[in-house]
Structures are given as C-alpha cells and as structure tokens.
C-alpha cells in the first residue's frame, strides 16, 4: 500500500462516517480501519531520516560507443 492509497481510503472512510448512515457494527469497523490507516500514514511521515543511496558510479566505467 502506498501513502497515497492509504490516505485516499482514510478520506473515504471519514466521509462515510460523517454521513452517519453506517450501521453500528459497520461504523466500528470503519473507525478501526481508519485508525489503522492513520497509523500507517503517520509512520511513513515519522521515519526520522530519509535515505540517500548512490547507484554504482558510472563515471569511470568507459562504455564503447554505439
């Protein structure tokens, strides 16, 4: 799941809940799913440090033309 997918689903759940037309069981399930999605998104943003990786240096790898 990407952040964007999780966020989109979270927004859909919020809208559904705010309409108030879900059954109680359903509402409870939606709420739990929403919290789960929230935690997933928050964890992605909270990753303290990003990562810079270097692809194997190409500069000195002479390549035959063509």
């Amino acid at each position, binding site marked *: 799941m990407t952040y964007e997918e999780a966020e989109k689903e979270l927004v859909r759940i919020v809208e559904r809940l*705010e309409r108030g037309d879900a059954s109680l069981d359903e509402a409870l399930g939606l709420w739990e799913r929403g919290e789960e999605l*929230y935690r997933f998104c*928050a964890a992605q943003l909270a990753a303290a440090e990003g990562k810079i990786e270097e*692809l194997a*240096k*190409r500069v000195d790898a002479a*390549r035959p033309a063509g």
Partner: protein
Amino acid sequence: MKVEPLLYGDRKVYTVAAFNRGVASWLQRLPTIWVEGEVTELRRQAAWQTVFFTLKDPDGGACLRAAMPRSQFDALRLDLRNGERVHVYGRPELWEQKAELRLRALSIERFGIGEHLAALERLKAQLAAEGLFAEERKRPLPRLPRRIGLVTGNDAAAKRDVLTAIQSRFPPARVLVAETYVQGPRAAAEMVAALEAVCAAPEVDVVVLARGGGSFEDLLPFSDERLVRAVAGCPVPVVTAVGHEQDTPLCDLAADRRASTPSAAGRLVVPDVDELLAGLSRARAGLARGARRTLELHALRLAQRHERLRRAPALLVERRRAALAEAGGRLRALSPRGTLDRGYAIVRRDGELVRSATSVVAGDAIAVEVADGSFGARVE
C-alpha cells in the same frame, strides 16, 4: 594491391613497406564518413600541394590528423582558423611512408554555434512533429514518491541543491542518486544509461535530471536526441532542471515537468511534510467526529423508538375505545329503540309481531310496545 610476403621456411615475413601497404589497402575499404572536431595545427603553405590540420575533440582531447589537397581547400573559401568547429567529410587513409593514419578530407563545413542552433531547431521540429513534446503526454508527478531517482553530475552543486531541497521539505524521502557525465561527448549516452538504471531500481516513482548552469556547448548533451527520447519514454515521470532559467535544452520539452533550478526540482518531487501531517490529523479528527456522530444518530433513533414503544399500550386502549363508541353508535341507530323513540309502536298478538291488518280480527287481545313500556289492548 596484393602484398607478397617473403618466405623463410614456414614463416611469412613482410617488409615495412609491404605491411604499410597492406594496412593502407585494408583501410581503403572503410566507408566515407562525417567527423566533427575542432581545427588545430592548421598548416597551409603556398609551396605545398596539401593542407594539413588536426581535428580534436574539445573535451576528450582525442586527435585525428587530416589532409586535403590545397586547391580543394582553397576552393571551399572557408578562411578556417584554429579553434573553429568543423564537420569533415572524408575517409581514413594511411600515409604509407610513416604509417600515419589520417583523414583524407573530401569536404569541410564550418559547424559553429549558428549551425548548432540550426541543427537543434531541425531536431526540435522533428521531435515536436512526432508528438514527443505534446502537453497530453505529460504525466502528473506522484504526491509522495516511494523513492526518487536523481541523475546528475558527480561533483555537481546541482546534486547538493536537489538533495537539500528534498530533505528539508520531506525528511523521510528516499533518493537513489546516479552520478554520470553531464557534459562532453559521452554525456548523452551516459545519462541515458543512468536514467535507465535508476528507473529499473525498485520503487522509483519519479526521476530528477539536474545540472547547473553552463555554456551553450556544455548543455548540448541535454538536447541530444537519444536523451530527449529517453526522457520522453521514461516509465516514470521526469523532472528536469538544467542550466539557468533562460536555457531550454530539448530534454526540458520532453520532460513531464521542468523546474527553473535544481532546488525547485527538489521541491516539486516531494510534498511538505508539515502540510501532510496537518492533513493527516484533520483526517483523524474527522474519523473520531464521524464515529461519534454515527453513534449519536443511532442513540437518538433508539430513544425515539423507545418512546413510541412506551406510548403504545395507552394508544392501543384509546384506539379500541373509540372503535367501541363508534360501533355502539351504529348499533343504536340500527335498533328498533330509535324507531319507538320517534313515536312508533310494536304490536304483538300472542307474542307474534302483527305485520298486517288482516292478521287480526275484532276482539283479539294484542300487546303494544312503545318507547317507555307496553300495554295491552283489544282490537275493535
């Protein structure tokens, strides 16, 4: 020309001249081609039948000696000077006496900035006609790429600028950097290879191609047809940040987004983490609010149902009573009582209703019932 070896038993041995001639005749089979280079060591003397010069790559420094008959050279009226860029049409040949390779020039064309620009314009028109720069080809950038590819020079300030912009706006970003040549004759092919390499890495959702400012010639690889096609054909969106604002290399036109500087490119490919967090906590608040609202609506509905349930028995009795009263009214309307009240009487003889005057004779005892009672009578 057949080159004959000397024979010493089994061993074939060639004289230097024969070897050179052999190589020279082999070289003659090579095709006639165009070579681009800078003119250096131009030597033209009235006493010589041939004009000599050396062609050099401006960056790599590779050299190639070239020669052209003086009459042909003069007929071109190029007034060439050392340092000028030319295209030479010719074929390789060996100067047999010295075994020196040189290009036998058949034609020379000056290839200065003007010619460069003209060639670029032709390429631009051709690629535009193919639809490579079309607006509908542009893809939206991912809002939050899992991984960002960065293709840039190895000591480039551009690289630092992109990384700084990305990390300050979105600290958790993951970047895959491919350092490559960004100028010189090998740059275009190297950049294409680097672009393909980062795209092939897992989870790379967007690629930045960045290079700081440079001369017109420095930026030429960014207009190379191979690179432009690679940018257009890249499986993920590409953001270019090449040179300064006023430079528009062709790869900018093929890119999905063009940034004015490497820093701007960095800001384009990641969201602002603070904005994301704010949006996320809004969503979470909405989640709690929505759940509470759903609960409240259900509670309200329950209370309404309970109230109706509570009132149900009284309602039922009331409804029965009304129905009863109505039935009683209708019953009364139908009973003979109402008729007697209006002054009519019921006559019986021996307990039988008297319905006809012919069913009694004078002297019969009859009973007469009126509204408030009955009395006996006798028929006359």
